[in-house]
């Protein structure tokens, strides 16, 4: 009976020590747990099988502006600008959908470029989820937008205040402008109702805002 508290204290000490060592390691960025191996994953469906806008006939309007094609978003060949199709969400800025450069293992992707932003998602992820949501910010301006596969007509975006905004899908894309990040996005996919949580992004946003206030007020030099 007497030995139990001793064992418990020893065990707790070990947990604290291991935990402390782990925290110290992760603060420096290591050690890295192994990434799932890059085995022969299927490359995913062709982008045009999922996104009807990419099947549309190429027109003069689809050409990406030279400045954007040669700029830092696209100049390194992250996406194939020759496949670009101009898209115009129901509201807000236009953009361009295009095929992404093939990744390791020949994995395919779809990219979405617009004023100062670029996102690419694997076609495997797009096919699995039906929707890939992007959240971009400049200061207090928050754009919540994304790519939706054929057959999805709208997504419901819950802002962190609880307000729900329906964003129609036009040209396989959707967009709403807000001044707060989303907490959740819901949609009806081919396999039923789906949702994506953005609590992780809300937490990061809150931490960044607190830090920014500290920097601007001189608390962080």
């Amino acid at each position, binding site marked *: 009976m007497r030995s139990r508290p001793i064992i418990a204290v020893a065990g707790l000490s070990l947990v604290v020590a291991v935990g402390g060592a782990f925290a110290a390691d992760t603060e420096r960025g290591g050690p890295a747990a192994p990434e*799932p191996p890059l085995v022969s994953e299927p490359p995913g469906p062709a982008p045009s099988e999922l996104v009807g806008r990419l099947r549309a006939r190429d027109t003069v309007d689809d050409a990406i502006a030279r400045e954007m094609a040669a*700029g830092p978003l696209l*100049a390194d060949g992250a996406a194939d600008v020759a496949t670009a199709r101009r898209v115009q969400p129901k509201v807000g800025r236009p953009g361009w959908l295009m095929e992404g450069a093939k990744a390791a293992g020949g994995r395919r992707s779809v990219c979405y470029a617009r*004023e100062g932003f670029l996102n690419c998602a694997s076609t495997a992820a797009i096919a699995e989820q039906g929707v890939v949501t992007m959240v*971009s910010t400049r200061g207090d301006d928050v754009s919540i937008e994304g790519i939706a596969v054929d057959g999805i007509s709208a997504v419901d975006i819950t802002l962190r205040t609880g307000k729900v905004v329906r964003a129609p899908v036009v040209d396989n894309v959707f967009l709403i402008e807000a001044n707060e990040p989303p907490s959740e996005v819901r949609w009806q996919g081919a396999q039923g109702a789906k949702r994506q949580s953005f609590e992780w992004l809300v937490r990061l946003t809150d931490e960044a805002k607190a*830090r*920014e206030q500290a*920097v601007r007020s001189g608390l962080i030099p």
Partner: protein
Amino acid sequence: MRSQDRFRGCLLALVLVGVFASVPAPAQTPCQGDSCLPTTGYTYDTHWNCGGFYGNQVCYQPGACLNYICADAHTFGWGSADYDGTASLNVAFAADAATATAYPPFSNSGGSLARACRRRDCVDTDLADQRYWERVSHDHLNHAHTHTIKGHGKA
């Protein structure tokens, strides 16, 4: 007729000079004209990563750094978060103000590659008091695996 034409020409020139003199020059435009591409102006290019890290962590430039305290500040105008693995996750890139006078922060997330420019046209401004910390992260919470997200920044 010739003297009248000259007079009209001089008058037109004076009006044009007056009009253009009253138009303010665009602020902080590093270059203009057909030869000026948006990449002009970026003189610093950096890649970083932290090895594998969890979804509740963030990885700062210059790498091997999971807290802004060890982050380097630069006059960043562009950044990128890139995941090359096979897991289905979303990456995020963000540039946070590192100086009190910095422009507003900028960020982008979603998919396996997310890139963002401070300006809509992606032109760099490179002002000494506009310094940012850049960081990358991912949304794979509650999973046993860490993931390596590669950061890339230009200033």
